[in-house]
């Protein structure tokens, strides 16, 4: 993924074959020339590569060890549960049921595909689009302003504001007598029952979720903007490039690694979060208009004591998130060398 352009990289050994099979089809052919460039340089390069491999695994050891214990083991447990029936108390009570849980999720009349999964996707997609656009605009605009520290502090507030306060304030703003309808009425428009109407409930919460994720996205993008060398902007200014050109030709392309990060992590958050929904609509109402996958799983596990089907749903959601993430990595890579 990170075929860094111009790196002094001699691909001397065959040790990469394993990773090449894992979908780095974009490895440029130019490297083959380097590979054939003679065995004198090859021996030194070989030694160096060996050393880099050792160092890399040394640097990764703490993380890999942690993931082995706190991720891999729990996942095995989750897979086991997804094929069983378990009420969540005594480990001796786990009863294997085969693929029954999965079959039930996708059975005719099951609410899992629609509206639960479709709501989840809409929720995540809406959040990402709104939050990303807003964050890019604000992070970029802040660099134009005076008192940047003040503005950044204000935009940091959503991160420390509890979701209960966020949800409740917006809930009251959406009420018939609330601020939003007040504005609509002043413009001569009719009141909207934002959270009570099944058609508007989900989009209304999407706006709030996007707003709530703005803070961390801005933090990351600000760090990204700060990492762009100032000399590029000075050069562009000398060439007489307009503001818009500078933004689309310099800022956006160089921001790509942090944009990818925000995009991927916001999507994952959007697909997994439900705290705001419980604050604003209780259990996903009206009807199941705002019912999302994570809420559904949480209720199955902790409320109905059905850990089997909750784990099965979690694994399905995992596969969905994995596919969406891989598509994003692929999209961002196709536009250039790395992200």
């Amino acid at each position: 993924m990170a075929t860094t352009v111009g790196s002094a990289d001699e691909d001397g050994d065959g040790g990469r074959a394993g990773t090449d099979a894992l979908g780095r089809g974009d490895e440029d052919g130019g490297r083959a020339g380097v590979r054939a460039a003679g065995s004198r340089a090859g021996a030194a390069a070989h030694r160096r590569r060996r050393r880099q491999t050792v160092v890399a695994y040394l640097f990764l050891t703490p993380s890999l060890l942690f993931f082995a214990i706190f991720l891999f083991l729990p996942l095995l447990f989750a897979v086991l549960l997804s094929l069983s029936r378990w009420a969540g108390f005594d480990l001796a009570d786990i009863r294997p049921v085969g693929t029954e849980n999965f079959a039930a999720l996708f059975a005719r009349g099951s609410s899992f595909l629609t509206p639960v999964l479709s709501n989840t996707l809409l929720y995540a997609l809406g959040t990402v689009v709104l939050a990303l656009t807003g964050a890019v605009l604000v992070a970029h605009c802040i660099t134009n302003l005076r008192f940047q520290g003040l503005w950044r502090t204000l935009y940091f507030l959503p991160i420390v504001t509890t979701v209960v306060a966020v949800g409740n304030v917006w809930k009251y703003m959406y009420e018939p007598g609330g601020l939003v309808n007040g504005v609509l009425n002043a413009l001569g428009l009719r009141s909207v029952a934002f959270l009570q109407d099944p058609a508007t409930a989900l989009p209304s919460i999407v706006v709030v979720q996007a707003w709530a994720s703005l803070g961390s996205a801005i933090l990351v993008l600000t760090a990204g903007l700060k990492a762009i060398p100032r000399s590029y902007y000075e050069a562009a200014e000398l060439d007489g490039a307009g503001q818009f050109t500078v933004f689309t030709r310099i800022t956006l392309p160089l921001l790509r690694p942090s944009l990818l990060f925000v995009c991927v992590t916001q999507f994952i958050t959007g697909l997994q979060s439900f705290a705001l929904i419980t604050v604003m609509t209780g259990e996903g109402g009206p009807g199941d208009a705002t019912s999302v996958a994570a809420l559904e799983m949480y209720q199955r596990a902790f409320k109905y004591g059905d850990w089997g089907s909750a784990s099965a749903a979690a694994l399905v959601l995992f596969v969905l998130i994995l596919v969406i993430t891989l598509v994003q990595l692929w999209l961002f890579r196709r536009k250039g060398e790395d992200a």
Partner: protein
Amino acid sequence: MRRRRRFPWLSYLLVGVGAVVTVVPFLDMLLTSFKGAGEYGRLPYRFLPEAFELSNYREAFVRLDLPLLFRNSVVATAVITGSVLLTSSLAGYALAKLRFPGRDLIFRLVLATMMFPPFVFFIPHFLILVHWPLAGGNGPLGDGGAGLTVSLAALVMPFLVSGFGIFLMRQFIVSVPDEMLEAARIDGAGEFTVWWRIVVPQTKPVAVTLALLTFVSAWNEYIWALLVSTANPRLMTLPVGIQTLQSYLDPNRMVPVMMAGLMMSVLPVLLLFLLLQKYYIRGVMLSGLK
């Protein structure tokens, strides 16, 4: 970008309007913490309290064992933040700049660590800590005692490494110019020196970002801390303590007192953010590069 002839009124308008919407819920949290009994949630909604009641703060102060809660929260948050920064930067460097077999697989694995709904992990994590070998009275096979669940380690163990953090650091270390790293290597620097002398200083703004985000999420972490402190009340953290206020109070006063508790727990985070602001003022300088 910086020397602009015209006044950037459009930027001010956009950022300003956004900021108003950003501040209101926080202000509401603050104002609610001063509201009297039965005042919260009444319609039509009023932001200002009828009288500024300080009694909510007094109540939260008296009800909570603040020294214990603060100690647990501070220790857990500091250890988690330190560990996440260190492991993320090292792993991020390896994934961004070193070439080795298995790199792409490990990178995808790191991404995959974020993709599981967190609730899947609670029970297995607890079981793992209970059966941690040779700790808390356990034998080598992890039987016989309470394992790590009785110590402060229980609060931090499941959060010591973050896939989110590794991904973030990797995304920024990718942009560190290879020429700088090569120059250091030619001068005889080993990879650890390259990481410490070049990568770490070059990625300060993003490290600050990661520190803040990790700090906030560790500081506010609720569900795991609740689970652990149910087993051992001495491990209660601030968010858990504040939630326990719910069961003590009459419903009319509940939300304001909880908001008072939350304000007390938010202040250290805001303070930290203000202290770390200076790292955003100047970006990375590419002075080492000719």
